[in-house]
């Protein structure tokens, strides 16, 4: 038995399915693919799968991971993506399958590609939006309310922006790296909502997770 990790992308219609629904979709795909994986041995036997870092509803991703245990040590892992892909709905595609290297608890940060536009394009021009964004990010601090298990507390997002890079293109877009993982997780929507409040305009953000990293910025694999 070996622990394997598949990396998959999640976009299109599947952006709009929740983490729990994704779990169900994956269980059915595994059942249908007849992959020989380890099942739990309780009363309701089901394929044992785990996800390292849940993805918020509405986010796309190019780097989601799912772990399971393959029963046959000689199984050809390189054939697994195709076996799963023919059992998955439009929008979820397995890119690779390898033995798991790091533990989910090692995850420290995640990178997002974000495109912003005003919900109502009459409210603010692209150019204006871009200027305001720079202004916003130059503020000495960005205090937002964050819900945690212990209640609501104020955090300064400024200190959590690990990397920020404007991207080229017609639309206002940027790449952003934020803390992620089980101990500290910052959702990029916190920053976008704070910006939306700052300019007083309702925004639409197209968000795609493009990387998940462990200590030292190494890709989680």
């Amino acid at each position, binding site marked *: 038995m070996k622990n394997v990790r598949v990396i998959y992308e999640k976009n299109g219609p599947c952006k709009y399915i*929740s983490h729990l629904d994704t779990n169900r979709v994956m269980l059915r795909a595994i059942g249908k693919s007849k992959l020989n994986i380890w099942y739990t041995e309780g009363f309701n036997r*089901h394929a044992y799968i785990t996800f390292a870092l849940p993805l918020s509803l*509405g986010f796309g991703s190019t780097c989601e991971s799912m772990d399971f245990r393959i029963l046959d040590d000689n199984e050809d892992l390189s054939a697994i993506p195709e076996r799963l892909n023919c059992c998955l*709905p439009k*929008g979820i595609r397995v890119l690779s399958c390898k033995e798991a290297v790091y533990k989910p608890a090692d995850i420290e940060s995640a990178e997002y590609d974000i495109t912003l536009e005003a919900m109502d394009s009459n409210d603010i021009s692209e150019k204006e939006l871009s200027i305001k964004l720079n202004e916003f990010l130059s503020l000495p601090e960005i205090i937002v309310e964050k819900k945690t298990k212990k209640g609501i507390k104020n955090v300064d997002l400024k200190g959590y922006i690990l990397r920020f890079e404007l991207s080229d293109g017609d639309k206002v877009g940027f790449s952003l790296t934020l803390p992620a993982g089980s101990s500290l997780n910052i959702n990029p929507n916190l920053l976008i909502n704070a910006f939306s409040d700052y300019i007083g305009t309702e925004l*639409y953000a197209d968000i795609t997770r493009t990387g998940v990293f462990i200590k030292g910025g190494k890709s989680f694999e």
Partner: protein
Amino acid sequence: MYPKEIERLLLKVQKPGRYVGGELGEVIKDKRDVEVRFAFCFPDTYEIGMSHLGIKILYSLFNEKPYIWCERVFAPWIDMEAQMREHDIPLYALESGDPLYDFDFIGFTLQYELSYTNILNMLSLGGIPLLSKDRHGLEHIVVAGGPCACNPEPITDFIDIFFLGDGEEVDLEVIELYRECKKEGCDRAEFLRRASQIKGVYVPSLYDVSYNDDATIRSVTPRDGAPAVIEKRVMMNMDESYYPDNFVVPNIEIVHDRAVEEIFRGCIRGCRFCQAGFLYRPVREKSVECISKQCHALCRNTGYDEVSLSSLSSSDYSQVVPMLKELNSWAKPENVSLSLPSLRVDGFSDDILDEIKTVRKSGLTFAPEAGSQRLRDAINKNVHEDELINTCRVAFDGGYTTVKLYFMIGLPTETMDDVADIANLGRKVVDTFYSAEGRVKGKSPRVTVSASSFVPKPFTPFQWEPQDTMDVLKEKQQHIKNSITTKKITYNYHASDTSFLEAVFARGDRRLNKALLLAHERGIRFDGWSDCFDFQAWLDVLSDSGIDPAFYANRRRSFDEVLPWDHLDYGVTKSFLQRECERAYRSEASPNCREKCMGCGAMKYGGGVCYEER
């Protein structure tokens, strides 16, 4: 694929996964390659509609034809509707994302009366003229089928064609006719006239209804060669009848999230309140081999690990134990679990329990429907108290602690004593738990007693009966509550106002069309959802339309009155229904179809249970 414009709206609504399609098993075609586009509309939310078996059968059946592309459309929930109206986004089909007005056929399934306002709302959101008379040209043919098509009179202004009975053949015949008419350049009227000649097709615009002075119907007269009586269609050979080997598998959780196999159509019982028990006569079974083959294919193709064996009364399947054994020969090794809903109290045996034990133990649900034996005989629910108690004992011995009991109040001939017996029966079930040797020690039983209000339906022996007034129903609900003396019983009852509205529309006539239109204009929809249902708004609509709802709900009809659905033929004769009604007055039960033929009329279809060897 959903329209690009909705992406920004999706994050503002609950469960956006309802509106995007893209599921495994959806059928995508190139619209330039097809001749007929059919929008299959379910007038409720995605989770409800996707749980419905009929849509799955017809979706696959239509899409097997290369010249048809059938797509799915559901009613957007009120939050999404508000967004769509605000941003001028028409209701679209999930597969192509194209608006409803791009379709040749707009087909609705009529599962319950309280979804009628959603039909109007969906048409309006889809840019389709609401009234049949306002739709011109050979496009936008609005069709409907399903159980409520047995009295479609309240929605005849909106629907061009009704399909009566099983849809597998008649739907395709009408689509094929449409294709021909398009090629020949026929107009809409000509197409509808020719459609009316197909068996099982009811074109309401070809019938004139006249009324007596007392507001009852005088006559229904066909025009343009339409048949005087429209006969339902029946699939007699279930093994050879089309059944899909794949479903569209939703990405989000739906109400019935599992594979479904229909094991037979119809019901041998003839419970006198049950419309389905009469509409789907005669009983037609699938063979064990056919069921096993179809189930296996479905599980393989969908990836579901649970199969529900669907019918009106599962334990009446003549080969139930051999079927479960055959299914388990592959289901157990493949980790697939079986569930057998609609088990009867008297059909619950150790054998069955053993075979379905793989399913998680939730609880048991039984529907004695009435509290006293006298009333159960009157409604022909042939369940005896000792059978119920024995079954509960078997279940308690087997480790169950939860039992749900479903009842109806307002049944014909019911007295306050019958009502109090509902509480008494609940108490006896609690007592049974404590006398069961094998019960789970240290746990107390949970018995849920639910009482819904009886709604008299067309094509049942109670089609002439008045519904109890809401005051009487409320009094009966309270009487049960007061008769329950133990905390081990949880008592639920359903609001009587929705049942009242359901009763109005179930036996309504064409004069209700204008009330529906007015209700739609006032923004009424999702009447089946308690968070949307507004009874006062409905009373206003009815009163402003000059309609007395009590005329439809609370009036006793005489046996010789012309009923709004008398020109429709579902196989059971009016004289049989009258005989059954009179037996009910005498509290006399009737034997089931396998015990003795009562001559309902369904024998004319030449098959099924009527010709089984006995």
